[in-house]
């Protein structure tokens, strides 16, 4: 074969991309699909068991509404600071993202505290019956998800406060904000399933 012909030069192409222009954005999307699918299937298992059961919950009171609702309201409200971090990342605003990730870390910690109250007031145990098992499964899955994001955000906060921020790191802050949006959105159907489905079904 003949030797290659150089027809163009790539040295003017940007040295990083934002969002879906970056590989990280696609990696993040992949993990969201996997986790989202796990939630869909776990939720499907809940609905399947619910429709096969003679009554729902099988033998206990529905989970206490108060803590779950507080948790949900904080989740929704957290979108406001989250959108601001996202915007600060877009604007390459270093003080803005440094402040923002600390706020998001604190929100994550607050949510974990509320989550502890939620778990204490589910009114069922995982080993009580199939209802208890599937309710705990949904809650544990989501708690692991939340905890992973909290650790991730906290580590990012430490890094951003101890290092200068090169341009591509702003893209990681944006990815982190997108992931938080996913955590919030995936919670809403779970909230309906865990807290409202037993009330509507009974």
């Amino acid at each position: 074969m003949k030797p290659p012909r150089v027809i163009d030069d790539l040295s003017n192409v940007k040295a990083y991309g934002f969002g879906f222009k970056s590989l990280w954005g696609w990696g993040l999307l992949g993990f969201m699909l996997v986790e989202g699918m796990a939630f869909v299937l776990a939720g499907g298992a809940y609905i399947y068991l619910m429709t096969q059961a003679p009554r729902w919950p099988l033998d206990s009171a529905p989970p206490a509404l108060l803590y779950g609702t507080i948790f949900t309201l904080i989740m929704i409200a957290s979108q406001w600071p989250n959108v601001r971090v996202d915007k600060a990342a877009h604007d390459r605003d270093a003080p803005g993202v440094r402040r923002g990730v600390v706020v998001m870390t604190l929100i994550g910690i607050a949510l974990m505290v509320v989550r502890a109250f939620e778990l204490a007031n589910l009114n069922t145990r995982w080993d009580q019956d199939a209802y208890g098992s599937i309710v705990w499964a949904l809650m544990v899955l989501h708690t692991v998800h939340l905890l992973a994001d909290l650790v991730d955000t906290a580590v990012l906060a430490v890094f951003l406060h101890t290092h200068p921020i090169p341009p591509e790191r702003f893209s990681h802050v944006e990815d982190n904000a997108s992931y938080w949006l996913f955590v919030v959105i995936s919670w809403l159907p779970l909230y309906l399933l865990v807290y409202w489905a037993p009330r509507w079904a009974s």
Partner: protein
Amino acid sequence: MSAVDADPPAMGDDLALHERLERTWSRPRGLWGWIATTDHKEIARRYIVTAFIFFALAGLTALAMRVQLARPMSNLIEADTYNQLFSMHGTTMMFLFAVPVMEAFGLYFLPLVLGARAIAFPRLAAYSYWVYLAGGVMLYIAFLLNVGPETGWFSYTPLAGPEYSPGKRTDFWAQMVTFSEVAAISLAIGSIATIMKMRAPGMTLARMPLFAWSILVTSFMVIFAMPAVMLASSFLLSDRLIGTHFHNPAEGSDPLLWQHLFWFFGHPEVYIIFVPALGMVSEIVRTFTRRTIFGYPLMVLALVGTGFLAFGLWVHHMFATGLPELGNSFYTAASMAIALPTGVQIFCWIATMWDGRIRFATPMLYVIAFIVTLVLGGLTGVMLASVPLDLQVHDTYFVVAHFHYVLIGGAVFPLLGAVSYWFPKITGRMMSEAWGKVSFWLVVLGFHATFFPMHILGVTGMPRRVYTYPEETGWGGLNLFSSISAFIVAIGVLIFVINVTYSWRRGRIAGPNPWDSPGLEWAVSSPPPRYNFAHAPYVESRDPLWHAKDEGLAVMGGLAVDAREVLVTSVGSAHPEAREASPPPSLWPFIAAMATTVLFIGSIFNEWSLVWLSIPLAIALIGWFWPRPAHTELLAAEMRAHGEPEDKIEAVVK
């Protein structure tokens, strides 16, 4: 690696550029570098070799079963051991061989067929390999310690529950599922990112090689299917460990929950194995007919269609469970419908062969055997899709015959063809054609002689998963014939392995493109340099090397030489969008995989392991994701060293 490693790249780049790139993309020598490597080719080679070792082990369990079944009332192997043997066989073939080996071929060849310097997320690929290896080794250690799985590869509850499967056998099985699925999902995410964002400029989706299309469809299927089995096996483990009742009808669960979750994964799983094989077949057919694939858009639609339909037929594994009839009719229709896209592809390959000039080299022979065997297996599949017939032959050897026809015929034959086809690229040497053909005939004829009689055995009522049968059944003759034939397959595979091993060291030097193939992977030296491509190829057609024959391959210069850099392009039109760093060798994936292993194995024995042992994993992941020196800074330094003007540097890195 062999001495041919040192070959200069075939693209005619000057030696100095090659040496600088080799230095940039090299890894440290010795054990540290071996463990820390992020070279997708090196990781994929390990993956492929490991998968074939598991293939051999699963083959040995099959031979043991065939020896036992060779005559009636044989007592060579007792029932309990037999249960473990068929469970190990199915589990190994599905989880530790077929899916990993297909994904590993993707890992090796995706960047090469797409014209990229590396895979996306190579450290995730390294992590995937170590997790996969640990899961497989754990299963075999458990088997040797007499705690191997005993409830079959799909481990139905309640048989697999705490009541009927006491001890830890099923726990090891369930946790092996977690290992292998974590590994598979990790590779799938890297494959999708690579295909979507790292194709060479000009390689629009409409010019993408069919092998890449097949891996794309497979990877999405992995992402949507595998969480189902991870969820099911986690439910099973927690039922067995902490007394949950996910699968306990006595406490309000439904006995079919397991089967729904398992087959929501299990049916797509078959296509996860089969779809990459379709991509391999298309690559081989194109090269050995010297013709561009007939009906490329139809082929792509068929692959995507297969991916979608595969999620709509899981219930056909459950026809015997007494589900509502309307549901059964739907799944019958869906099961028959999936034959259509496969049929479309078979006709397109035949049309390609019809119009091309066929070379009957070993890879092409495997393709022909694939088409014949798959059509037979597909036809019994269409028969089984019909509920009345399915109910008659459910759990008999008819089903065993059917799925071996589609899995061996549909996936293993193309795989052996792909090994023969790509071997020169991976090793730099040719396999022996003569011995290749000998092993081909032994494997293919031995296969049909082994499995065809099982159709008859099944129709006459021989159930699967029985360790022996009475003489009066009259099944002895066909079983003996089947057992002898199984050893012919084994001899064929052994010759294949010897051929591979010998040729890897002593085979004829291949050169960059021994088959005169049109794919980009053949534009680089054999084996490829660590950096794959010095310049990004510019793709102008579906068959780039044939297109470039007269005027040479068009390439685009300007990618970094002294920093590991990959090009990111747009999803549809593959227009250059950005340049990004590719991670250097790192021990973190290995450390994280070991932490994962300790966590998974610990949680078989104690639920609190899940809490305490997740701490080392979290530390490993933080170490892994702790940001490296910024690519923008490395690149700015390289540009300054080359005297680029500051305003250009500013424009690129700010």
